[in-house]
Structure formats: C-alpha cells, structure tokens
C-alpha cells in the first residue's frame, strides 16, 4: 500500500512537473519566458529526488504559476503593445 502511494505520488509529481515544463516551453517559443522559471523547475526536480517533497511541491507550484502567467502575458501582448506606441 505504501509502495503504491509512493508510486502514485511520483506519477502525480511527474505529471504536474511535465505540465509546468510544457507551459514554460510554450512561453519560451513565444519569446516571453520569465528569467527564473527554468531554475525553479530544475530545483523542484532536485528537491523531489532528494526526498524534500514539501519543498519540491512548493517550487513546482511557483514554476507552474510563472509559466502560466508568462503565457497569459504573451497572449495579452500579442496586441497590447500597440497601445504603448508613441503617436
């Protein structure tokens, strides 16, 4: 039972981590990746491997939120920049 839970947790972490990484890559492709997201996700993975799961999940949440916000910024700026052009 314990082993199954650990496997489930690992799977859950991997899935969420991959989701954050995919979002980060999408933001990067659009040219809007934030400075620290990659580092945060890398540290999250390292903490998880080291057994510091609470810290790993906290970092993962940060990474996920940053990737999400960067993508939202990219969508906003697709046309939003035009409002700032000096006329």
């Amino acid at each position, binding site marked *: 039972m314990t082993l199954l839970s650990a496997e489930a947790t690992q799977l859950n972490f991997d899935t969420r981590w991959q989701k954050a990484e995919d979002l980060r890559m999408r933001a990067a492709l659009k*040219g809007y990746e934030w*400075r620290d997201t990659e580092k945060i996700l890398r540290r999250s993975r390292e903490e998880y491997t080291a057994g510091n799961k609470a810290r790993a999940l906290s970092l993962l949440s940060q990474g996920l939120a*940053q990737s999400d916000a960067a993508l939202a*910024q990219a969508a906003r*700026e697709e046309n*939003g*920049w035009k409002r700032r*052009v*000096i*006329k």
Partner: protein
Amino acid sequence: MCLRIFSTIFLYCLLSGVVWADPAADQTAFKNYFYKKFPEVPVGDFINGVYAIDQKRREQWLEIEEFPPYGIALDEGEILFNETVFLDGASYSDCFVDGKRSKKNYPYFDVKRNTVVTLELAINDCRVSHGEQPLKYKKGDIAKISAYLALHSRGEIIDVEVSGEAAINAYEQGKKYYYSKRGQLNFACVDCHVASSGMRIRAEILSPSLGHVSNFPVYRFKWGSIGTLHRRFSGCNSQVRAKPLPGQSEEYKNLEYFLSYMSNGLKFNGPSTRR
C-alpha cells in the same frame, strides 16, 4: 460601390489588428516625444544618454572621459583588428575595406540573408568566412574590436535605411519587442526609457531612449568591462526578470534596427562610459 469595398477592407484590417507600418512617422513621433519632454536638451545632446539630462552626472562623466576606463580595451581592439591574421592569411581589413569600417553602415537589412546585419555580426561573419571560430557576442574581444571601429566612427551620422517589405517586417518586429511588456515585473523597454525617462530608479536616473544606440559599446562600472549593445539588452531583460536572449538573436538584432532607425540623424559617439 468603391466606397463599400474600401470600407469593408478597412474594417477587416482594423478588426484583424493589421498595422500600417510607417517608420518615418514613428521616428517623428518618437523624437518629438523626447524634444517635448526635455526641451532644455539640445537635440544633438541626446547621444549622451543620462548625461544629457543630469548636470552633476554629466560633470563626473566628462572627468572620467579624460582618462576613459575603456582605453585599454580600445588599444587591445586596435591590435586585434590590425594584427590578427586568420588561418588563410587574411585579416579583418580584408572584410572591412574603406567605408565598411564605419559604424554608420550598421545595422542594415540584408535582403539575401533576410536578416539584420549588425557590426558585431559582420565581425564574426568575417572570421567565419576566413576559417576562424566566431567570438562570443556580448563582451570580450568582439566588444574591443567594435569599440575600436566605433572610435573611428565618432561624429558620423546614424542613417539607417528601412525600405522593402522584409526590412519593414524586421523593423516592425523590433518595434513590437520594444513596446511589449515581458518578464515577471511586466515591463516594456518603453516603460523605463520613455514614460519614466528622467525619473529615478533607486540611485540611478533612467535615460531617454533617443540616442541610446549611439555610444555603444560602453564600459559600464557595473560590469567592470566593456560590453556590446546586446549585452545591455540582456541586462534590461534580466532586470525585469525576463529570460535574456543570446547576443545577435533575431529579436535583439531587430530591436537594434528599430532603435537605430529611431536615432537617425544623431551622431555616433562611442565608445563611452556608463554607470
């Protein structure tokens, strides 16, 4: 009938976000903004960045320029440019003949390559075409060679041409980059260097964008060395917590193209020192 067709096309363009590119109108509006914001600054003085708008900093800078900290880099750049012999026996002089040594030729849009060519890119193109490895783009030898060439371009007029569909597209991409907010702090170049130019950011004063490109490469006290314009772009990106791009990335080249065009008519005065 014609009116209806024209109206339909106009409405379609408006809704689809099509922007009519007019670099000349952009440039006029850009310059006028700074002329109105800093009416006491003589037009030609915008090449001095923050030193054009703050007298005390200007005095310090002028004293520093008497024995400029980029002097050693300049000497090294001169040696690198004139004494480097490539694997095939050629030298930089073979690539940068006559007028091509001047910064006034850069950046330009190369139609065949469909990209903006900057001075630093041309330096590495020269090396690669003669069998050498390219130099790193943001600092080191490339900044020294660029500084040497910049010194010999002092006083020449920035005169970047933007004509043809592909060149206008590159210009528009640079313009979009300049005006787009990015990074965790959600800042665009325009936020600091237009709307907030002349205002304080901690102990520093934000410089106006007009004339920014004229004085690079620069020796920055923060860096403790000389660096290229793209190194500065990276720093700006990093400061707003956006991921910096590699030197000579398409985005940075297009940004340099846009900013250089905005400063057309001003003089080159690089290399220089900045805080």
